[in-house]
């Protein structure tokens, strides 16, 4: 059979499935299960867990994470622009300025509405 670029991907898939499946299945065949209280606890880097996992925690964590992601992703789009700045010239500069202004309005909106304050 003539190998195509897809053959490589197919081989990759098969190997990934076999390795992952083996890791899941083989240990179970050879071990004895002797669970103790300590073993069944959630692993928190060796520190005894202090609370249950299924708790509720304040929405401000989500808010901070979400706002961070939004503005973080926006800054990522500066990189390709910076690399091609000379070729894009004045047009690229004004485009990026417009982008920053639009972004700035959103930033100001979040700030003024108290999105950044830890209440």
């Amino acid at each position: 059979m003539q190998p195509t670029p897809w053959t490589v991907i197919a081989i990759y898939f098969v190997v990934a499935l076999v390795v992952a499946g083996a890791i899941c299945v083989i240990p179970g065949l050879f071990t004895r299960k002797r669970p103790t209280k300590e073993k069944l606890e959630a692993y928190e880097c060796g520190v005894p867990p202090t609370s249950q996992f299924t708790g509720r925690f304040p929405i401000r964590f989500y808010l901070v994470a979400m706002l961070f992601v939004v503005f973080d992703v926006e800054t990522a789009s500066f990189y390709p622009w910076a690399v091609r700045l000379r070729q894009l010239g004045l047009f690229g500069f004004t485009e990026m300025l417009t982008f920053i202004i639009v972004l700035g309005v959103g930033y100001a909106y979040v700030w003024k509405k108290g999105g950044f304050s830890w209440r």
Partner: protein
Amino acid sequence: MMSVAGVSISWAVLAPIVALSAGGLLIMLVDLVSRSASKTVLYSIGIVSCVASFLALVPLYGHTETTLAGAFASDRFSWAFDVLLLLTLAITLVLSSLRKAEDGGSPGSYAALLVFCTIGGMVMAGANNLIIIFLGIEQLSLSLYVLAGTGFPREASQEAALKYVLLGSLASGFLIFGSALLYGSAGGVGLAALHSAAVSGGTLFIAGFALFLVGLAFKLALAPFHTWVPDVYEGSPLAVTGYMAVAVKVAAFAVLARIAYEVFGQDSFALVPLWSVAILSMLVGNLGAIRQRNLKRLLGYSSIAQAGYMVVALAGVQQSGLNTLLFYLFAYALTSLGAFGVMALLGDGTDAYADLDAYKGLHFRRPWPAAAMALFFFSLAGIPATAGFYGKLLLLQQGFLAGPWGIALAVTLVAGTLVSFYVYGKVVWDMYSYVEGEAAAPSGNAFAPWVAVAAGAVGTIVFGILPQTFTALHL
């Protein structure tokens, strides 16, 4: 017209979107700067930017051009869709004027989100490659996820937003993965490149298109990807539900039709899954509506069925199908917005009149709203002398001319319509039968919803009795 790095940019084509974006930003700024900007001011800015966008759209009439290296098209087709989206936005903003402070959310962010949502729809209407399609869909969806939750003091609104965002993200995943496979098979993201890939076929292309179709069918609420509709429609604030029922369908049909015409062309076998989900939608939508006791849920199921009907316009991918699709979309939009207008009018912007029991004997308390609601229901069902009837006539013609799948679609359309006669007829019957001593919910009488009701009623009657007026508009 200017050109940067070999890519030409036609600002005239982009002007309607730029105008609307500026309006959205202005709403945010005014909301920021002025502590006391009333919601009337903010919503008025939205309506003014609608008008500005429309004025920018006027010179593009009858003008065919692609810009941004073929990524974005302006033609007769996108023009009509843009007009319909702007009309929907304007009516929704008018209906939203009934929102009260205790409904939750600031009026500034609410109005800005509606505007941004419409921009997403306009991007979808002109999108000529997979990346722009995805950008448009995401802008539309992300704004709508939040809008669904803008009634957050009510738990149902939170539930609607959460369900919508979870299932919507899943659909977006299908969409983007399908796009990736399509790109892999075609070697380009433009619809022209996809056309050559569609002609040669191939497993990768079929798999990609199947996934893409799943994502799009979710946005269109075609069965079996419709399960989110009843809950999201019921939980969302009234004006948002009306907007959702119309704008999302309009924008997603713009994408679907462009793909059917530019990528596949006549009698393509690859569109068979689309015909199948359309048949299923017509059945599920109409049968599911029978049991509903909540008008928002009922209209949700109705919108599932209507989406199925609209696919019939594309059957066989005939050139006349586009006119049929446009007529039906305009008829559906006016009818649907009118029905939500009546609901907002009676309930004074709240969900008080979402319960179908509140409509019992409505004629004897509020004859005009009852008459308007009956008119809209007749149009949704397809009773003669309404726009919905003429639209269905066009759809049937389209279906019966389009080979075996077209005939199957047309026959299901007739069957679904018969079921829907019962669904809508029962509500109209309730409205016109006298009930003794029933404690009815008090009904509101604000001016704003009358605008939506009047626009819907005039459109439904004029396009129903004189459909040639629509043809004369040459949309």
